């Protein structure tokens, strides 16, 4: 046969679709001889191939649907497969025509040829059209009990397909039980597919469907030995959920799994490693653990001989494993040495692992005494011969070509110095050698890490400062410059010409990036405090002038003012503040948070372990399963919403105490206790999976001042919503007004809030009765904070979705008025205020001018502020200006210190604030401005 499929891609002059139609139909209705039949069949096949070819290049050939389906009734498997391929693609767009194929499907599912039976079931499962699905159940039932294992294994996967389309049908027809029976099948391929299908169904279901009992465990462990490599991965991954009862059982499991480490398939090896690591947590015997570690090391290392892509995955996993069990690869650091031809992403990962494995034993030759070497050579006969030393290796990398890699290598040396006290001195001398090479980016990177080394070992290595200063004029990167300036300022008393060095930077002060300017400012102040002579005095004048008058950077200006004030009022206090002792740092860079590490270790050998992110950070739940939930009319017991996504994301906040909750309940005892949130279509649309949809059941009383409109009647098809966040009796409420301008009564209101910076979510039920046409209903929805915190930069946007039984879902954005967060306990005593102000770093102070605001009556303003939980502390006069000090507090006890400067009665208020959460400053300003204006 010398056919050539590529000819199907050629186009003809005549319209392509009509021509194909002709070819597909030419033979129908003709009386033909048997001999001619084969010729015709080939011709049909060719025609269908052309159609498929057109389909794959993205042409729309759906108009040929009927013609192609007519070719389906054939004994020729090749042709049949082609038609099925077409059907899968177009059935969705032609559901009415797809029904034409049902008869053939059902017939095929009883064909004597097992391949055709399997093909029919496989294809039907891929056609996501309800009418076809209805007809799938009977054939599927039969095929699950088929004599041929190929049919059974195809049917097993088909159950998962059906569950994805219609979960209820699967449960009603008892397919889950049939699937569980297949776990005991005598064909390992069938077992593997049944396990894969059950695992997937479990994943999208809230009920326990696939629980691994010790009985199933035994069966699967047996099947493991006979399975194909892929089946082994399915089974191992499913079994990794199994929690062994005791150390004994864990040891037994591990024993059965260990031979998998010898498999040539990397996926099998990694899944086996995962399983062993998990069971190891239960094993008490240190001998067994040590032995297991020894067994796991060679296969893990062998993964590094695979393709670079797999190496990368292996390295990301090893990175996690060595954080928990450093002993596994402690003696293998050499295998992570970078190869010349490794892709850069592999090199970077290797470097990271080398830093993690670096120890006093392998970092450097010089840290050993002769006797230690002698002792080592008994323990590790191979290692000592080769004298591999990580530090030298890093030094070598630092002279490579790839700039990014070089930088990372230099940083690695610094991190080793910080990590290993005994090696620090050698690390520093290597860094100095590198500096002497005078390659610009190496020098700069080295200076950055040396600054950290100084922080880690104060008063130890300052002798090298002179060498560092030689490279001063080559620095052009902000971070390196800032680091160098920090060093000069910090050690000004030891550097004879510190003033000259700093002075050289001053000329270009206005052009420097902010980072450098800030360091220059601080360094000059330090210099002045340490050497209060004429030179530094002049310099400080220049710098302060530059940093206050000439700059438009508020951070810089504020810091300069603070220094200025400090220096002019109390130079001794300035010394205490500026030259205070700094805490010693440690190397915790790239160390994962222990709880995150725990979660990631459970997810070894998954995508999660490559990203080093928990699965729910990137796995989005599919729409189909959410749809089902909604169809179910919010069933009870769907606590799944809680269990699936931890309420407290990585930022480590804990959920707020329920005090506010109970307080509210006592205010309004009539309302029912809040129901647990239900995952729902609404939530998925908005990207949340833990929102609070609350059904409406009780009316609320409409009162209060007018609210801003958030959803216009024109947008909401007649429904107008006004809403605002308010604070009453120590509780935040969402005050809402629903106006029904439609012709029909609206009911069944529900509300949901998208993730937001402050984690605002509904704490109770949205109580809106049926809203008759032309009327309005007002309600107060209690809110809680820190429920569903969004990541990313803080934002005051609150995205809300409202739904009722008559209309589509409405989305609108509201602005969070920040002052509702100010708590009632925000009052501070004067000493506390002063202490807090001092304890916060200068960089946390920010200020802003409100030029349009006039404070007419001091008392009225202060009363108004106090009503909003912003409390007056003290007042002082500064020339003709009044300076007010106030305090407030937001939940979690975060204080906010405010200084207002104004001339009473004339426009313009300067507001300076200081708070530990300086990222929230814009919101504070906004809130204060609102309060002052109102």
């Amino acid at each position, binding site marked *: 046969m010398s056919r050539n499929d590529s000819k199907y891609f050629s186009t003809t002059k005549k319209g392509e679709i009509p021509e194909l139609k002709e070819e597909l139909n030419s033979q129908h209705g003709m009386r033909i001889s048997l001999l001619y039949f084969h010729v015709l069949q080939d011709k049909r096949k060719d025609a269908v191939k052309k159609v498929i070819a057109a389909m794959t290049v993205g042409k729309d050939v759906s108009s040929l649907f009927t013609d192609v389906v007519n070719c389906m009734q054939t004994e020729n498997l090749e042709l049949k497969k082609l038609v099925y391929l077409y059907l899968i693609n177009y059935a969705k767009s032609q559901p009415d025509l797809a029904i034409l194929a049902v008869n053939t499907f059902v017939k095929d599912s009883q064909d004597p040829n097992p391949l055709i039976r399997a093909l029919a079931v496989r294809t039907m499962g891929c056609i996501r059209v309800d009418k076809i699905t209805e007809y799938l159940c009977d054939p599927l039932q039969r095929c699950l009990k088929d004599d041929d294992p190929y049919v059974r294994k195809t049917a097993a996967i088909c159950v998962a397909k059906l569950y994805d389309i219609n979960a209820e049908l699967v449960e009603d027809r008892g397919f889950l039980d049939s699937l569980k029976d297949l776990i005991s099948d005598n064909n390992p391929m069938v077992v593997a597919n049944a396990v894969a299908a059950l695992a997937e169904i479990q994943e999208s279901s809230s009920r326990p469907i696939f629980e691994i009992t010790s009985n199933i465990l035994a069966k699967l462990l047996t099947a493991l030995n006979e399975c194909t490599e892929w089946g082994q991965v399915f089974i191992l991954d499913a079994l990794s959920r199994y929690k062994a009862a005791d150390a004994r059982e864990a040891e037994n499991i591990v024993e059965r799994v260990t031979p998998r480490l010898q498999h040539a398939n990397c996926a099998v090896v990694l899944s086996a490693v995962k399983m062993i690591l998990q069971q190891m947590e239960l094993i008490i015997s240190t001998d067994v653990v040590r032995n297991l570690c020894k067994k796991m090391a060679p296969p893990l290392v062998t993964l590094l001989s695979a393709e670079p892509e797999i190496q990368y*995955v292996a390295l990301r996993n090893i990175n996690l494993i060595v954080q928990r069990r450093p002993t596994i690869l402690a003696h293998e650091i050499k295998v992570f040495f970078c190869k010349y031809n490794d892709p850069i992403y592999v090199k970077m990962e290797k470097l990271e692992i080398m830093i993690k494995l670096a120890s006093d034993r392998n970092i450097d030759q010089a840290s050993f005494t002769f006797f230690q070497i002698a002792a080592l050579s008994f323990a590790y006969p191979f290692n000592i011969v080769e004298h591999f030393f990580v530090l030298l290796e890093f030094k070598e990398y630092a002279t490579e070509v790839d700039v990014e890699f070089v930088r990372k290598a230099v940083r690695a040396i610094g991190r080793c110095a910080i990590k290993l006290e005994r090696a620090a001195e050698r690390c520093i001398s290597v860094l100095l050698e590198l500096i002497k090479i005078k390659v610009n980016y190496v020098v700069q990177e080295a200076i950055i890490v040396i600054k950290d080394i100084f922080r880690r070992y104060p008063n130890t290595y300052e002798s090298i400062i002179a060498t560092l200063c030689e490279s001063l004029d080559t620095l052009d990167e902000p971070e390196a410059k800032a680091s160098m300036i920090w060093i000069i300022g910090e050690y000004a008393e030891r550097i004879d010409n510190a003033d000259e060095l700093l002075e050289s930077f001053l000329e270009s002060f206005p052009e420097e990036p902010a980072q450098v300017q800030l360091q220059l400012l601080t360094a000059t102040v330090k210099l002045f405090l340490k050497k209060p002579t004429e030179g530094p005095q002049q310099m400080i004048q220049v710098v302060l002038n530059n940093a206050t008058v000439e700059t438009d950077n508020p951070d810089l200006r504020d810091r300069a003012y603070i220094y200025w004030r400090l220096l002019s009022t109390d130079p001794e206090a300035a010394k205490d503040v500026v030259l205070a002792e700094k805490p010693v740092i440690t190397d915790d860079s790239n160390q994962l948070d222990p709880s995150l590490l725990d979660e990631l270790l459970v997810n070894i050998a998954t995508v999660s372990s490559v990203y080093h992110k928990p699965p729910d950070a990137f796995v989005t739940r599919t729409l189909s399963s959410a749809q089902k939930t909604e169809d179910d009319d919010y069933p009870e017991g769907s606590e799944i919403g809680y269990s699936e996504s931890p309420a407290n994301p990585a930022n480590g906040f804990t959920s707020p105490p329920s005090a506010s909750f109970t307080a509210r309940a006592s205010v309004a005892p009539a309302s029912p206790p809040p129901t647990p949130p239900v995952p729902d279509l609404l939530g998925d649309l908005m990207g949340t999976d833990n929102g609070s949809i609350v059904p409406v059941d009780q009316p609320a009383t409409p009162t209060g001042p007018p609210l801003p409109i958030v959803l216009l009647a024109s947008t909401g098809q007649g429904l107008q919503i006004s809403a605002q966040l308010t604070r009453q009796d120590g509780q935040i409420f969402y005050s809402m007004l629903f106006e029904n301008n439609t012709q029909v009564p609206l009911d069944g209101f529900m509300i949901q809030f998208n993730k937001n910076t402050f984690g605002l979510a509904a704490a109770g039920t949205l109580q809106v009765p049926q809203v008759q046409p032309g009327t309005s209903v007002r309600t107060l929805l209690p809110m809680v904070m820190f429920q569903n915190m969004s990541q990313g930069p803080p934002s005051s946007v609150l995205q809300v979705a409202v739904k009722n039984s008559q209309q589509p879902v409405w989305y609108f954005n509201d602005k969070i008025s920040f002052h509702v967060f100010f708590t009632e306990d925000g009052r501070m005593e004067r000493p506390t205020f002063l202490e807090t102000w001092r304890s916060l770093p200068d960089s946390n102070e920010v200020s802003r001018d409100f030029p349009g605001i006039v404070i007419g009556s001091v008392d009225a303003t202060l009363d108004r502020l106090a009503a909003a939980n912003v409390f007056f502390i003290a007042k002082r006069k500064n020339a003709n200006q009044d300076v007010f000090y106030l305090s407030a507090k937001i939940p979690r006890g975060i204080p906010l210190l405010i200084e207002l400067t104004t001339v009473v009665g004339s426009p313009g208020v300067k507001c300076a604030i200081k708070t530990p959460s300086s990222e929230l400053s814009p919101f504070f300003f906004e809130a204060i401005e609102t309060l002052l204006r109102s």
Partner: protein
Amino acid sequence: MILQFFVLSQRGDNIVYRDYRGEAQKGSAETFFRKVKFWKEDAEGDAPPVFVDGVNYFHVKVAGLLFVATTRVNVSPSLVLELLQRIARVIKDYLGVLNEDSFRKNFVLVYELLDEVIDFGYVQTTSTEVLKSYVFNEPIVIDAARMPPLGPASIFMQGSKRMPGTAITKSVVANEPGGRKRDEIFVDVIEKISVTFNSSGFILTSEIDGTIQMKSYLTGNPEIRLALNEDLSIGTSDYRGSGAVILDDCNFHESVHLDSFDVDRTLSLVPPDGEFPVMNYRMTQPFKPPFRINALIEETGSLKAEVTIKVRAEFNSSVNANSVLIQMPLPSFTARVNFELEPGAVGHTTDFKEANKRLEWGLKKVVGGSEHTLRAKLTFSQELHGNIMKEAGPVKYLQIAKTSKTQNPYRWVRYVTQANSYVARL
């Protein structure tokens, strides 16, 4: 599980596209390609194999083609990456050669294969042997001889397990034009060497990654026994007799029976159709490196230097090394390089790669025991300060030790050694 599978050409064209779960977004292939292509502006670095964009993309590059799979769930990435490699291998088994042309000519077959390999995103089988009973299309084999020997794709072959020109370009299912199939079996012992010498010529690290590859065209699938070196031991055992070979670790293909492995180091297997690795092994036992490289750098003037590179082949004179390439990074301010080869040198090429400032010296053939020298005069555009010169030489060589041939069937055993990372530091 796996959402989609697709194969893209170097230009980003969709060659094959299969959506397994009917929930894929449109244009994900395009999104992916843009991401890979613009991963790094300087185009030097390859994109790492996984990244997220709502869907997770996995990809491997085989023969210049991008094999991509996507997923939405937390799958095993090594499974997907391994699978992509296997799919490429299965398709190659069927088509004989793997390139855009053969894909286009056989797209129906490829789709048929893909449907059997993956169902609803779950891997079913990647064994060419098993697939043969479910797949009915026959491949249209394109003539390997007509292929351009070093197409643009060949630059991607570097570092892959198979070398251009050495791969057997014959389909396992297609019949020979002459009718009857020939009984043949090919065994390749491929060893990749990594050696790092320090500046004084001592070996810092050395490692061998080995694979025994087999490709069988035997009819009737008879059982085969493969005998390995009897002095082989695995793991760092205490047994260290002379001539012993100590493997750090090894693993075997699933068709291999290890019943008598512990007794007499023989493997028995019924080779399935298609190409597959019988055994992978790794050893760090010290061995004699095949090449020694010396480089001498002299400053000969204010803006001039002379580099002398000496390479010595320290292996038996009956063995030849082919296509040896020595590279040496030069300072970035190198303006010009004049090369001076030894008199009578044949088949040597020298080049100064202006773009990445690298000196390249190619030797077509190096006979065992011979020594070659290259002198290069460098001219700098700027004062030389510091000394960041070092040598990184990936020496790619290939030695064919023996081609044994008995009457019937034909047994082709070939020993290939390649350089993985062969670096001499200065």
